[in-house]
């Protein structure tokens, strides 16, 4: 029980400290912080309209967060979410463009498969480099992001470019018929359902199955996994594949539900924000859902901040950055706070 209190107390305290720092920041910018917080609340959760905005942004965050969270469970700090999302989206778009004209259900399914496999293989490279060659997974996944973004830019400006797109170079469209629609008469696309289902599925896989238990052993102590005879290499590769597949699916959804074609909107920062969500959620797939909604809300409120306080568009990103730094710093406090130690010392 005490560990649950601790794992709630630390991130909540970190969040409050971040808000305090952000208040200092907006005060310096000459705006009353309380009014800013109220605007963030209104922009994120104040009305059905803002809720829809929030949920649309939360959907890709849930999926990209899984990329970091799953890898972290096997002991790897992977930050290749952005790259895996770009690669997944790009491959899904390619498949959509090529298959455009066939039955929409078949095209969409093929796009989902393409996004999952390409994103999975992309982070699979990271796992393989780590396991077979000992390459630091954080560095390799970060560099793979740049490669993925460069390939995307090359393709949408070069061979795949639709001449009709002038301001924002984009690929040819996947076709209106192959777009994922909205849920009911809301403006929330079906990506949210994909995100929620994937988080639930991964939670079950990690917390309730033999596979997840093996991953926890390997991530906790490789030597203990080896002495139990577990296939460490296969576990690392599979887990990295699953993480990359989730981020790749996020890319596919961005194409199939929002953009309709591949362009630089694929690397709008959902991947990097996913790292923050994963750390805030302590790499628990179930906790990712509320955290992604919270972060989605902050991102959704940036427009309102701009309009009502004449704060720059990037203000929401400043808040996001402050939260990230404070959360990372707060990791050092687990197991060191006296209140949570008293009972454990009795054994």
């Amino acid at each position: 029980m005490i560990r649950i209190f601790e794992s709630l107390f630390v991130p909540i305290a970190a969040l409050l400290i971040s808000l305090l720092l952000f208040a200092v920041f907006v005060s310096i910018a000459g705006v009353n912080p309380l009014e800013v917080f109220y605007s963030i609340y209104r922009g994120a959760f104040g009305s059905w309209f803002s809720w829809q905005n929030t949920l649309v942004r939360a959907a890709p965050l849930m999926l990209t967060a899984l990329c970091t969270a799953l890898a972290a469970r096997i002991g790897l700090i992977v930050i290749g979410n952005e790259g895996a999302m770009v690669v997944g989206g790009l491959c899904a778009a390619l498949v959509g463009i090529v298959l455009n004209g066939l039955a929409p259900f078949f095209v969409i399914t093929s796009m989902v498969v393409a996004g999952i496999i390409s994103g999975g293989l992309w982070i699979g490279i990271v796992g393989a480099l780590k396991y077979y060659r000992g390459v630091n997974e954080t560095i390799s996944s970060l560099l793979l992001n740049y490669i993925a973004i460069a390939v995307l830019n090359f393709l949408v400006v070069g061979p795949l470019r639709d001449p009709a797109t002038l301001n924002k170079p984009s690929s040819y469209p996947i076709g209106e018929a192959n777009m994922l629609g909205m849920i009911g008469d809301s403006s929330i696309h079906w990506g949210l359902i994909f995100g929620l289902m994937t988080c639930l599925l991964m939670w079950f896989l990690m917390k309730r199955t033999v596979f997840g238990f093996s991953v926890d052993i390997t991530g906790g102590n490789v030597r203990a996994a080896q002495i139990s005879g577990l296939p460490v290499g296969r576990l690392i590769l599979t887990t990295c594949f699953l993480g990359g597949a989730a981020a790749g699916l996020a890319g596919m959804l961005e194409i199939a539900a929002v953009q309709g074609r591949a362009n630089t909107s694929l690397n709008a920062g959902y991947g990097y924000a996913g790292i923050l969500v994963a750390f805030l959620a302590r790499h628990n797939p179930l906790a990712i859902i509320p955290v992604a909604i919270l972060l989605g809300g902050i991102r959704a409120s940036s427009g309102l901040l701009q309009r009502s306080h004449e704060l720059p568009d990037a203000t929401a990103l400043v808040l996001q950055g402050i939260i990230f730094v404070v959360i990372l710093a707060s990791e050092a406090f687990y197991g060191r706070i006296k209140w949570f130690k008293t009972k454990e010392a009795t054994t």
Partner: protein
Amino acid sequence: MTQPKLALEAINISKHFADFCALNKVNLKLRHKSFHALLGENGAGKSTLVKCIMGYYHPDEGEILFDEKQRSITNPHHAHVLGLGMVYQHFTLIPNMTVAENLVLARPQLPAVINWREELGVLQSKMAGMPFQVDLNASINSLSAGEKQKVEIIKQLLLDIKVLILDEPTSVLTPNEADEVLTKIKNMTQSQDLSVIIITHKFREVMNFADDVTVLRKGQLVGTAKVDNVSAEQLANMMIGQEMNTQPLERTKSADTTTVLDIETLNVDDDTGLPAVNDLSLQVQSGEIVGIAGVSGNGQKELVQVLAGQRRLISGVIKVHDEPYYAKRQQMRAHKFHCLPEEPLRNACVPNMSVADNLAFRRFDRPPLAYKNWILNRGAITSAARELISRFSIRTWGPENPVGNLSGGNIQRTVLARELSEEVNVLVVVNPCFGLDFNAVADIREQIMQARNRGTAVLLVSEDLDEILELSDRFLVISEGKLVYETTPQRADLTKVGQHMAGH
């Protein structure tokens, strides 16, 4: 000539770690300008004693006299100021800096800006008075182990110390390098104002170089002598001790004796790629405990890691019941091959997972702990854990307690419970009682003996010779990755065993 002065004296030093007694009223007298050997097995308390002298540890009782004045040395820095220097078993040099840079860095008070030209000049002039010469501009990376050791010693000598403590300085050196270094140091004690304490377990070094020797055993002072007055045999007996186990554990003779574990010409490399185990062959029969005795660092770790699946072998075959064995899960299960490694928390547990989870590592993927081999049955894992916790009397506030919170003895019991809770054909055990209190030791040895009596083939690798003598049916001595001597506890000639352990 006046009465020979004492450079350093430690009186009645005791040190406990939790309920483990590392030193019990130990005395040490270092004569002025003498070369003093501190001899003992692993875990005898040699390092603890010098760490108390250097101020790393604060002794529970006793006092330290330096230059015949009482001093309370509170930290290593304080020891340096007084003129005490220590060279550690492992190098403390910064690998990608030069010798000169390392030597200058060691000085306690450095200016904010270092004038390297001036420093080099000073170093060069001081090097003339040093027993060894090392190229000041060489990078530490490019030096051999022997040269690094020389730099470590020069580093201390440059600080104008009066007492130099060397912790197993020759463990990383070749015999020739060791002789050179020790000869030079010996000469320095005669020509300069320097007294030396050397920690070792090699008789050869004691006999050839030391003036005096102090022998420790299990935290007790066994004796002090002038080296001229003792023989290697006497030292071996002092170091290993003669006392045999008073209450032998019950041993039953097993009916059939088939060879279960068969290791043929095994070769294994260590982390640096150097051979650690050389052409090692070994058989263990059912209902038999085979001991492997030896000083740590002679290939035991690498041998066990191969058996446990934590390291790849270079060549050789491991067979169980005449079938080739690879340390994979299916094979471990098929052959009932279990392992109780040393440092169980580091090698066999996940510290922040619960006791229940750690107890389930062998069985979590099979009914009854899993439905259909892939969904965990949490309830069954917890109830299986409760049963093991009471059967092996593991002290924890509950199965959900992270295993890292338990005491050493209870962590060892947890791993033992996991590895011995079902039928076992082969059990590999390494230093099972290292650092445990008396009750836990008796309990854990009893469990290992019961497994043997049930017909398990047990390979016991231990640095504690008493443990080997108490438990094993026969035992071998490992030295430099080779099995060099075989005997049984009943017929063992301890002097010979000690000499083989010391590579003599």
